[in-house]
């Protein structure tokens, strides 16, 4: 007997169905890209127990994804310096649209939807001008490009929508790269990373920069609490033996708040936080370091360490309510009933806000 998912997929194919919802995709609450042991790349939806509820093939290795807040659609980005992203129907597996970065731009692998689901915003590199950009795509019109604006810095990476559904926060990593020199970092002596808050039409509302002493600390990844605080994770571009703070919390307009780093913690992370998440109640922050094989959980208010675990190649982390779910390159999904899949999970685990 066909289940609801197959039934709806069939109806959708005939064009007879009402609009599909995330429930029709098996009610996933998390998205993760990965590489199957048979070498095929996939995008998976996971439920709160860590079960894979859908698995759709991808043409190449993904990086992060963005989940549409209402429709069961996910945008999967190619790895940096990727020039395309696919919009997938997570019910049928159909590719609804392919978006290509315009001439002279490439994607950084992250994007976010406006709260109403109408617009998709992508971080991009205007590489000949060494200027960070945000591309705007009309999700109501087949993901047509609707415009772009400056991201407020160099090397924008993660981008998130604040709880008002409109304000964007961008992690401008500060590092200049050019596709013709691969991943070579071109401006380390004078790099400067910042968090920029922008309106959907690109007006800069506020910015917060790293302190001069940590100017080689690159803000890369973000998580937003329900009260609008932004948790950010950094990657240190200086000496391995330096011990920079690797995460912090910030509220638009406020001063930046960085916890006092405990030397051994920063060292064990090898100066590198790969992902960050904040619990729904905003009291705890989780960061990962695949380079150091570390998952850390902190008290968001005090900055004190609550828990640390050594897990090789852990990178993805997302908050499900007040608990954290983690994924590893070894196929593990942690924080729920332990599952190990024959899939090497890629860098990020994305929570689907419209998924429940």
């Amino acid at each position, binding site marked *: 007997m066909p289940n609801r998912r197959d039934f709806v997929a069939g109806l959708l194919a005939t064009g007879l169905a009402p609009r599909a919802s995330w429930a029709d995709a098996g009610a996933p609450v998390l998205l993760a890209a990965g*590489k199957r042991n048979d070498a095929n790349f996939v995008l998976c939806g996971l439920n709160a127990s860590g079960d894979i509820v859908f698995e759709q093939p991808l043409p190449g290795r993904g*990086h992060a994804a963005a989940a549409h807040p209402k429709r069961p659609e996910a945008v999967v980005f190619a*790895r*940096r310096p990727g020039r395309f992203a696919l919009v997938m129907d997570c019910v049928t597996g159909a590719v609804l649209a392919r978006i290509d970065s315009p001439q002279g731009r490439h994607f950084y*692998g992250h994007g976010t939807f406006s709260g109403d689901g109408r617009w998709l915003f992508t971080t991009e590199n205007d590489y*000949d001008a*060494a200027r960070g950009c945000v591309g705007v795509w009309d999700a109501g019109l087949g993901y047509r490009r609707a415009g772009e604006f400056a991201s407020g810095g160099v090397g924008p*990476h993660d981008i998130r929508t604040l709880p008002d559904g409109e304000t964007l926060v961008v992690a401008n990593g500060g590092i200049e790269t*050019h596709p*013709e*020199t*691969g*991943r*070579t970092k*071109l401006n*380390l*002596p*004078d790099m400067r990373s910042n968090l920029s808050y922008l309106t959907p039409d690109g007006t800069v509302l506020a910015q917060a920069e790293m302190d001069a002493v940590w100017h080689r600390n690159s803000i*890369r990844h973000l998580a937003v609490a329900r009260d609008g605080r932004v948790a950010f994770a950094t*990657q240190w571009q*200086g*000496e*391995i*033996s330096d011990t920079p703070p690797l995460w912090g919390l910030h509220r638009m307009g406020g001063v930046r708040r960085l916890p006092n780093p405990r030397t051994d913690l920063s*060292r064990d992370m*090898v100066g*590198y936080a*790969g992902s960050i998440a904040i619990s729904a109640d905003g009291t705890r922050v989780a960061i990962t370091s*695949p*380079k*150091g*094989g570390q998952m850390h959980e902190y008290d968001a208010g005090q900055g004190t360490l609550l828990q640390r675990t050594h897990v*090789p*190649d*852990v*990178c993805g982390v997302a908050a499900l309510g007040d608990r954290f779910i983690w994924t*590893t*390159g*070894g196929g593990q999904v942690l924080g729920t009933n332990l599952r190990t899949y024959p899939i*090497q*999970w*890629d*860098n990020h685990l994305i929570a689907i806000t419209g998924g429940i």
Partner: protein
Amino acid sequence: MRALGLALILCVLGNTAWADTPDLGGIVDHHILPGYRALAEDAAALDDAAQADCAPNNEALRAAYGQAFDAWIAVSHLRFGPSEKLDRAFALAFWPDPRSKTPKTLLALLAAQDPVVAKIQTFRDVSIAVRGFYALEFLLYDTQFVEADEVYTCALIRAIAADIALNATGILADWEGGYADLLRLLENDIYRTEEEATRQLFTALLAGLEFTSDARLGRPLGSFERPRPKRAEAWRSGRSLRHVVMSLHATRALAYDLSRGDTALDAAFTSVIADAEALEDPIFAGVSDPASRFRVEALKARIDDLRNALAEDLGLRLGIVAGFNSLDGD
């Protein structure tokens, strides 16, 4: 051939028993310190040559420049510790320079007859783009500078040469004055364990190969539709291919020591170096011609394969966690 070479490395590395930990003291004494001593000596000789005769077409000066630049390339993969202090390595080697800051800033200094060049102390505060070997190359080999105001370019050449010498001596002094022991003796704030020190050297090895592939080869290759031969490293002085070969030799030596003399790995380097030398295209002019371009592309691919094999297999043997996410984070 490429696939075969890679298969060979994987096979041999895969069959080797758990390797010993590397001889860190040996790497310091036989790889790092001799490299920085040579750089300090050759940079001092360059400074002497520039103070003696600053004419850009003076053969003694150009020879001293070439020798000091060679010495830099031989250590250019060792980007940690003393080389990063005070941005010394960036001041020695500001390249790649995609928006041409070096020639633009040099021209601006020249146009303004900026007196910062008169004293080494003030010169060291100017833009990092006009310091080091790549800025000096413009003054010695680029016609728009060689034929410019002689008095001012002379002062500029002398200031850059003196600055190069100061940075080179500074790096060596820091290595000999304590940093070498940090790496040798361990259990200090910089290197708490053997694994941390090994990781530093392993990272330097991979980063060195990546830079050769991404920048030294990737930059002139550009795209098939738009090759960029004039973006090759140090093409004005005819050194582009030379740098690729020299840096491969340098990373080969480090890989040999880190792997405790793995002969199969060494043979893989030998084969890649032979391919590089066989290009016989000193400034990668051939990237514009599809027939010769593919050989440069093939060399780049072989270096990438070598790096990937090292990352996975040598990383595993050294006890450094290498995984799907940890290898190329973002």
